[in-house]
């Protein structure tokens, strides 16, 4: 498989605080990369870089071997950690938005048959995330988990080439979370997406990913805590989950080998 996204010696700094340090990373087309690491390590920062929301302080990021513009576009979909949806649109409106933008450049509003079709598609996606009955609710009328699912539905309906997920299932109960796992795996296989997912659930990381990255500070100086940034300290490929091997298989099979978290979270405190 070819390199879709590559980070070349990337640094992220805020003032004199080093957050990410010397990140060298190549993500292949069709990969499902799980990113884990302690709170404050820089996982969200890494996603922001890939999204084009922020430019690295040093280093370059290449998308298809072309330097990434500090701009995000429809090739990348995102679910933010603080899941944000459009407060002025109903659930249905939020999900339809992407379809409308693509099909109606001028008004971003559809009419007639096109509208009906987009509506159906959006309704189907909402049903998949379990929001069928909240279709006409505004985000302010939804619970936390419902808003999160809405954000997922909104990103998934576009089938973006790269999907960036920042703790997408954090506010969901195990049952619904499992359904979401199935959904995302199905879309990932069907549409050959590339997924980068930040999660705190190590089981989830290993269950879904074809590769698990662990971000953490590689050194810690108690007198100058901001001197050292996080690096990729573990990079575990999981052949088992690769799309080829999954294609005949059921993606939702439970994984038997979920590593204990003790080995992965190295220094839990003082990461900030």
């Amino acid at each position, binding site marked *: 498989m070819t390199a879709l996204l590559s980070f070349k010696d990337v640094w992220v700094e805020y003032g004199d605080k080093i957050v990410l340090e010397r990140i060298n990373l190549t993500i292949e087309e069709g990969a499902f990369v799980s990113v884990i690491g302690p709170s404050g390590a820089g996982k969200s920062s890494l996603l922001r870089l890939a*999204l084009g*929301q922020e430019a690295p302080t040093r280093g370059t990021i290449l998308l298809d071997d072309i330097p990434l513009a500090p*701009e*995000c*576009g*429809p090739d*990348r*979909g*995102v679910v*933010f950690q*603080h899941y*944000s949806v*459009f*407060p*002025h*649109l109903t659930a249905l409106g939020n999900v339809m*938005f*992407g379809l*409308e*933008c*693509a099909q109606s*450049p*001028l*008004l*971003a*509003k559809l009419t007639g048959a096109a509208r009906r079709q987009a509506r159906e598609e959006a309704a189907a996606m909402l049903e998949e995330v379990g929001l069928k009955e909240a279709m006409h609710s*505004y*985000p*302010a*009328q939804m619970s936390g988990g419902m808003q999160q699912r809405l954000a997922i539905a*909104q*990103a998934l309906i*576009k089938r*973006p080439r790269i999907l960036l997920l920042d703790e997408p299932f954090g506010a969901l109960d195990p049952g619904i979370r499992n359904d979401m796992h199935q959904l995302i795996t199905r879309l990932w296989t069907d549409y050959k997406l590339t997924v980068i997912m930040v999660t705190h659930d190590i089981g989830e990381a290993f269950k879904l990913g074809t590769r698990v990255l662990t971000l953490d500070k590689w050194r810690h100086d108690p007198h100058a805590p901001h001197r050292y940034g996080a690096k990729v300290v573990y990079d575990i490929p999981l052949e088992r989950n690769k799309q080829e091997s999954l294609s005949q298989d059921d993606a939702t099979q439970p994984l038997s080998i979920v590593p204990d978290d003790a080995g992965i979270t190295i220094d839990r405190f003082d990461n900030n």
Partner: protein
Amino acid sequence: MRWVNRHVSRSRSAMMGAIPIVLLVVLYLVIAAERHAANPSDKILPLPGAMVEAMWGLLFVPDQLSGRLLFWADTLASLQRLFLGLGISTLSALLVGLLLGLLPPVRATFGTLVTGIAVIPPIALLPILFIAFGLGETAKVALIVIGIAPFMIRDIAGHVAALPREQILKAQTLGASTWQLMIRVALPQVLPRLIEAVRLSLGPAWVFLISAEAIAADIGLGYRIFLVRRYLAMDVILPYVAWIALLAAVLDMILVWTNRKAFPWAHGGRR
């Protein structure tokens, strides 16, 4: 219960809101009565009787020459100017405000200019204004627009610029172009604020309208006030001012109501 938590029902709220106004009216009556006791021909704080008498003619007796009921003709003329001015300002605030708030290059280029225009007191430019727009309706409407539009533009632009960055990013990942972002994300979210801005501009709009009518007009609430001011006819001025306040308050209420009805998403929170 702590004061922050003392919710007041709508009907009680209306009642409580009336208290200070009633008190003020009573205070006025007491002072006016006192002044009249000292000087029965006092003109500055007329008693209600005098006001009713003075207003009667304006309200119900057609003007000999034109056959119009002056009070209503004044009201109509002023409201027409006011609505035109407010309408134009609102539209331009929406348009320019969106562009300014959303597009950094536009903001860089025109932000300073808008600030500049906003801080130039249009009253100082009155002579130029009348020369540029003539003595007709245009100049009056123009004064209102020049007076309030820059403020509204800046307010809307500020509000658009303060939209959560995440929303702008997300819309782009969903394929929205700058234009689509503007009309589908920024525009609808800024509409409630636009109504707010209109509310806040109502006061200044009246000020500019009255200033314009004071200088060049032959009809209008402001014209009448400045006309009779030569005679210190407070018995006409005060009812006119009260009427303006009433009109403005009703407008304000309509705007609040519209805001609540038209944008349920902005008010359907958890509260």
